[in-house]
């Protein structure tokens, strides 16, 4: 593939990313519409496997399980999640955080909401470490010690696609002959879930992908692989410091400084710059190498 063909393929990928996420991340995994007639969620063999992105398996129309829901469950029953760890490691080793950029519907929602015109704010770098705390504490340690799924209790995506739909719909359970949700079930926890969701919905407008960058335990898991994954971003210098990559980046990364930053979601928006490309390789150096800027090069006498 010559350089021109390669650039046009990036243009094509950038154009299809949004409909791709909507179809493969949102619609297809949540298309069990028989639930409207049966009033019972899907419990077939697909529910025993998980998708590689956040998708609440308690959503009325969900076909597959959520990896973080599964992780919490195995922590709570104190068993090693062999399949899950193998699955997430394989996905992470192949693609790094690409699932965040190309499949996660909650990330996609954040991108769409950030297009609403308002004053915009950055996120302090130290806050981006919060996702690792979320993974270690809410998704692993607390479920292990308390046998309760703590991350699910506050997960805003779960509230949006499972909690609110169930409460709004509240069908009659065909086996029990009573409503699925009794009014007394909606206590402080429901208020907490709704509050967390509302706070994040406001933040989505004001900042770029705040949930992915500060709280998502799945993003934290994939972030561990970004520097060693086979799919990698490559920046061919010298960087002209035009800021184009920073302006389009949904997670505020300067890609020329750190092409394989743990926060990069491999959305490929930065390939709008002709210096940025994707490489599939297992021989590159894993160390972060900043690309020299044009001004730095001229200072060195080049």
């Amino acid at each position, binding site marked *: 593939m010559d350089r021109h063909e390669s650039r046009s393929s990036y243009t094509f990928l950038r154009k299809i990313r949004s409909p791709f996420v909507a179809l493969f991340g949102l619609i297809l995994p949540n298309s069990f519409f028989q639930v409207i007639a049966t009033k019972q*969620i899907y*419990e077939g063999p697909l*529910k*025993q*496997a*998980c998708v590689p992105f956040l998708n*609440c*398996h*308690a959503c009325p129309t969900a076909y597959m*399980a959520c990896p973080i*829901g*599964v992780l919490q*469950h*195995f922590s709570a*029953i104190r*068993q090693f*999640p*062999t*399949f*899950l*760890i*193998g*699955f997430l*490691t*394989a996905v992470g*080793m*192949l693609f790094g955080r690409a699932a965040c950029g190309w499949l996660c519907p909650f990330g996609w929602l954040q991108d769409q909401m950030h297009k609403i015109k308002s004053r915009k704010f950055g996120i302090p770098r130290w806050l981006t470490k919060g996702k690792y705390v979320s993974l270690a504490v809410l998704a692993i340690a607390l479920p292990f010690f308390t046998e309760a*799924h703590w991350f*699910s*209790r506050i997960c805003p995506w*779960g509230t949006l696609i*499972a*909690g609110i739909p*169930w*409460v709004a719909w509240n069908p009659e359970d065909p086996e029990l002959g009573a409503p*699925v*949700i009794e009014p007394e*079930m*909606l*206590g402080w*926890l*429901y208020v907490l*879930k709704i509050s967390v969701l509302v706070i994040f919905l406001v933040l989505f407008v004001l900042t770029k992908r705040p949930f992915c960058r500060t709280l998502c335990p799945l993003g934290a898991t994939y972030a561990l692989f970004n520097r*060693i994954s*086979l799919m990698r971003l490559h920046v061919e210098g010298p960087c002209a410091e035009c800021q184009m990559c920073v302006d389009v980046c949904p997670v505020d990364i300067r890609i020329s400084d750190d092409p394989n930053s743990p926060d990069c979601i491999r959305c490929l928006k930065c390939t709008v710059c002709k210096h940025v490309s994707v490489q599939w390789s*297992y*021989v*590159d*150096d*894993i160390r972060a190498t900043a690309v020299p800027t044009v001004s730095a090069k001229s200072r060195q006498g080049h």
Partner: protein
Amino acid sequence: MDATLTRSSIPYLRIAVLLAALTLLAFGLIAGDTSLIRIESATL
């Protein structure tokens, strides 16, 4: 010397991690790990 060694060992590290992941995945499937995944209703 050290840098060369580190650099040359990276491909093997990647392949080793990927193979280990696929092995875990296969073991998990064979052991019926996936059947342990509990389907639960929304936590309210």
